[in-house]
């Protein structure tokens, strides 16, 4: 499903050049549940953002099925994201001034889906926070916020779900619950890639990719 060939990413900041990725080759199967681990600053988020079409690599080729994503301009990338990608972030990235319901509904609006109400409520139900639909993200606990974020990703109904340290801001127990949620999403046929620091979480992934200093460690 995903094939990366010699992906490099440099960040240039007033003459300082950071080589965040230094030639990543990677293959991810459709329907897999992949964990990315590595020390802080090793390039995990950079890699995930490139996979998610939120950022472009400086060099190298990124194939999604047969499409060469690394050649896309921002407009095509947006269409690619809209069709294929959902994100879950460590800091939840909910829109705090919109209600839980509106947050989950948002990806449906751009995808012009019918029957929005039912889909939103189903997703919230599945995440066990249906009764919080009218609340605002700031009124929820961390775990509930992350469930809301996953519900939003679920509502988008994309084949690929990317999560950047989804349990990073949560305690062990809540984190384990969130991973259960991801497992459930995975079972429904979606490909999941998540970044984690937590070895307990990593242990529950089907496949593990270790990244160190911008390179994949085997």
């Amino acid at each position, binding site marked *: 499903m995903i094939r990366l060939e010699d992906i490099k990413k440099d960040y240039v900041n007033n003459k300082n050049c950071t080589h965040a990725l230094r030639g990543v080759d990677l293959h991810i199967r459709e329907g897999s549940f992949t964990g990315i681990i590595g020390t802080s600053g090793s390039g995990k988020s950079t890699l995930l953002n490139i996979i998610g079409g939120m950022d472009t690599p400086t060099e190298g080729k990124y194939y999604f099925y047969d499409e060469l994503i690394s050649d896309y301009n921002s407009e095509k990338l947006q269409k690619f994201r809209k069709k294929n990608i959902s994100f879950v972030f460590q800091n939840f990235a909910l829109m705090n001034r919109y209600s839980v319901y*509106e947050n989950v509904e948002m990806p449906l609006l751009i995808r012009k889906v019918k029957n929005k109400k039912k889909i939103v409520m189903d997703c919230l139900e599945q995440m066990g926070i249906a009764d919080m639909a009218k609340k605002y993200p700031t009124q929820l606990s961390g775990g509930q916020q992350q469930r809301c974020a996953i519900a939003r990703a679920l509502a988008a109904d994309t084949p690929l779900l990317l999560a950047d340290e989804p349990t990073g801001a949560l305690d062990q127990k809540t984190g384990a619950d969130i991973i259960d949620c991801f497992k459930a999403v995975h079972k429904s046929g979606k490909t999941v890639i998540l970044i984690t620091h937590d070895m307990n979480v990593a242990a529950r992934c089907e496949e593990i990719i270790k990244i160190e200093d911008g390179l994949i460690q085997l």
Partner: protein
Amino acid sequence: MLHLRLAIDNIFSQFKRFLISVIIIAVSIITLVCTVLAYELQGYAYDSCDELLAQGFEKTGVLYVDDETEHEIEDAGTCFWEDASTRKEIASLGCMSTYLFRFSDELLNIQGENDEGIFITNGDEFTVMTIDARSLNLCNMELSKGIEPEELEFSRESGENIHRYIYLGSAYESIPIGTEYIMEGAGYSFVYTVAGILEEGQRWVSPNLSIEMNSTSIDYTIDCTYGIFCVDNLQYFTNELWISASDEYSIDEAVEVCLEVADKYGVTVRYTTLTELYETSCMENVQILSYLAEVFVIIVPAVLLMLIAMQIVSMLFELNTYGIMCSMGFGTKDISIMIMIKNIIMALMGLVIAAPVIVWIEKSFMKEAPAPILAEVPCLVALPIAVVILLVVIFLTTIVSIIMLKRYTPVELMGKRN
């Protein structure tokens, strides 16, 4: 539809900020309208009279024939007037003043409908303006029908049946030319014949103008819709005569001739030109208004900059939201259109709030100002300026938002936190 929905959701998610923006826009529009009003009003006292007076503002003045004398001099005054008005330097020399009269219930009823200006009824009397045939050409007079003033024929006999003509404002259109009204008194009777109906929108200089142009009023013309002008050429004495110079001559030359003629009859004459009146009593007012008008030049770009800055700042606050929307698959185009619609709604709300406030300001602080200006300036002058400003603001903010969204990747918009 999608973008409208997004814009409305976005407005409600930031309702307080939205309200503040709307209020700032409304206040800007109000300031703008007020300065434009000041700008338009500064020249109004002069321009409106200048346009109305047949010989223009600068060639018109008022003669005061001194009244401290006895009866014989009064005759002298009359002789002076008769003599002076035939001189070639003088285009018109005559008197006009308003009186309360009663000679026709028909006219009384029509004027009774009017409650503004000077042509109003008072009990069972109504206001007419008596005017000398020789000063009817003081102002440009347009008739919708009837006999032109120059063609009127006056019978000179005095005593029993004195003949006068009346010109009626457009409100009296239904009254046929030639209708006669008779006013009987002890031993005399006046016959008033309707000579013509004035064109709609006809105005006349205010008789008060000869007393002073004070610093509180702005309009020295009066609406003649309900006007009744009694015209005669009786040689009765009056100590206040309107004078205007003929085409080839200046007001000074005309006055010069008058002084000579006055000397001949032993009459003392003082005079003042409208320009003099204007400069001595109105200048302060005009100055203040023109300062306001100058402020206008500063206010427009200031308003523009403020609105643009405000919109851009409020957009910066929301970059995070836009980043999140990008991560969900929204494109630059969707977000830009959303911002644009939001700004349009903001501008419209600003206009809707500003409109009644402007009407209120006009009603409570500018009631002296002439109605046509109060009605037309906000709509015909200020509104287009406001709309152009708002369009520029909307256009620029949209452009800036597109640049911002294109310049940063979604990750950067969200702020790197992972």
